């Protein structure tokens, strides 16, 4: 990460939130696809608003399923509380207004322009006639993400990275209280990754919202997230701040990787993987 901080479009330093923000907690959430348990009792007490929370863990750890449960796409057992009320007690409209979920990249080939696609994400406010407020929000987000020049391009003409930028715009334009993003930067180049995460960090602190992002790039997570939830085999392995969570022990246990963790001059943790642990199979077998 050699990019100078001046390149970034917005300051990444958190600002004091203007409102107390939503309270969000998860209690013993369990979910199975058929007879296969995917979430085996997830409990996270109080995720602080205004800061990015990174959900990390290896493939098939249950991150996407967990996000879908929060967004109301799946109906799990247990409690997911937003402002003290279980998610299921909200109406569909309320959840749509308050929770914005960005799914992992999905192939979109609709014949829609970028502007139309982002406008569509404000479906909960749209009527047949499109309001000025909707048009303003869409334009603002496209400007913030620096993809205005794509406005009248068609989705099916875009590159993978451009499509992902559109998805991010769709997420942000909804102005949610809880922002869930599943691998939002997987197709982006290094500069875009930093810019997007900077913007998300800015929006999160400015609006005082709860932001959960799943990331595979742990160094990116270390730079932007203030809190971590480490998931493994459908359970929470650890949660807390970077120092408590991003340890060589965790990397060995969860990722099966030997790695060094050092603190950078700018006091951000840097993880350098060294190699895979051969005995991972036996560890998997030991998990009930």
């Amino acid at each position, binding site marked *: 990460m050699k990019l100078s901080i001046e390149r970034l479009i917005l300051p990444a330093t958190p600002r004091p939130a*203007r409102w107390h923000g939503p309270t969000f907690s998860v209690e013993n959430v369990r979910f199975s696809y058929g007879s296969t348990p995917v979430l085996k009792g997830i409990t996270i007490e109080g995720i602080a608003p205004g800061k990015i929370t990174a959900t990390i863990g290896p493939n098939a750890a249950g991150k996407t399923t967990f996000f*879908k449960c929060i*967004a109301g*796409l799946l109906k799990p057992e247990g409690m997911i509380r937003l402002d003290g009320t279980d998610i299921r007690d909200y109406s*569909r*409209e309320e*959840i*749509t*207004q308050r*929770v*914005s*979920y*960005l*799914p992992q990249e*999905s*192939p*979109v*080939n*609709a*014949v*829609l*322009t970028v*502007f*139309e*696609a982002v*406008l*569509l*994400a404000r*479906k*909960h406010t*749209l009527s*047949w006639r*499109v309001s*000025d*407020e909707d*048009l*303003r*929000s*869409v*334009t*603002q987000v496209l*400007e913030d993400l620096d993809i205005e020049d794509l*406005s*009248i391009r*068609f989705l*099916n*003409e875009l590159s993978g990275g451009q499509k992902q930028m559109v*998805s991010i715009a*769709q997420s942000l334009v909804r*102005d949610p209280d809880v922002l869930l993003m599943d691998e939002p930067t997987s197709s982006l180049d290094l500069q875009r990754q930093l810019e997007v995460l900077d913007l998300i960090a800015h929006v999160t602190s*400015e*609006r*005082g919202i709860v932001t959960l992002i799943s990331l595979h790039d742990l160094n990116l997570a270390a730079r932007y997230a203030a809190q971590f939830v480490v998931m493994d085999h459908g359970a929470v392995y650890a949660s807390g701040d970077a120092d408590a969570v991003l340890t060589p022990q965790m990397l060995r246990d969860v990722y099966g990787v030997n790695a060094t963790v050092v603190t950078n001059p700018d006091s951000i943790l840097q993880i350098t993987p060294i190699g895979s642990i051969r005995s991972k199979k036996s560890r998997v077998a030991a998990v009930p």
Partner: protein
Amino acid sequence: MAIEQGTLQPTGELTATKGRRIYRQITGRKYLVMVCLAATLCGTLILDISLGPARLGLWEVASTILMPGSAEVTTRVIVWDIRMPIALMAVVVGAALSIAGAEMQTILSNPLASPFTLGISAAAGFGAALALVMGLSIIPFAGIFLVSANAFVFAMIASMTIFVLSGLRGVTIETMVLLGIALVFLFSSLLALLQYIASEQALQQVVFWTLGSLVKATWPKIGIAVVVLMVTIPLFVKHVWALTALRLGDDKAHSLGINVRKLRLQVLISVSVLAAAAVAFVGTIGFVGLVGPHVARMLVGEDQRFFLPMSAMTGAILLSAASIVSKMITPGAIFPIGIITSLVGVPFFLSLILAKRRQLW
């Protein structure tokens, strides 16, 4: 947005202006295309009415339409009782089939979906043949609507089969299309079986029906088709944004607060009624339901506020144009329109695909 109003006001106004400009740029072109197509449709409709074995002048036809009272009786009968039902049926059925195809393609997220490829047309053909060959009526006392009623019932059976099976675990939207194709084969072979045992006279009728024809169009039939259109369209209009959002993928649509499953089933039912009604009256006209939506998509994209009326217009124009050609091929006779739509439509469609500037789907 929760950004402070005070700091944002000047730039906010600027952003809104810019947004309006981009939005007008996107929608302005679509309105223009729609106006052009509406004019084209009027043109084909008038041309269709003015063509026929009795050589009536354009002016004579126009005055008979506008002032039926002052026209000669024969002219009035030709224009009002023979030509107009056929011409209007082409427009109504074309629109219905094309809308049905458009919404099928939308809810199944598949460019191959249409009343024809989902087995609805094949089932209708079998139902009609059942009436023509065996004299079997599914609805008692159907009277003059015997063939149409049978066709409608079987078309509904086909779509309800897809509907019921789609509720089963593990049935995805991809498998729904496969199910439809399986139904095409099932009903085609059942139809072939009936043709095999049919008398020569009945066989001729069956063949004629399956070729698709507008000549049996009457005002009451048009009335029914229009009513079906009027009943089903409000559902699509109510869900314009949701249907557009469906094309972003199920997860995204769901996270936008859309009950994807419910919407899909509601639309599937309405579309089935629409397609069944259209096919029941005119027989198997396969091509329009598939191509109409594709042409519309190329012209205005998939914002359903434009895509829906546009599909109706492209379908209506395609069938209206086919009706014109069907009268011109052999003077004095009307060629079966099902043959024409494909013969004329395929080269037209191929040229569109090959000349495309952007991806079709």
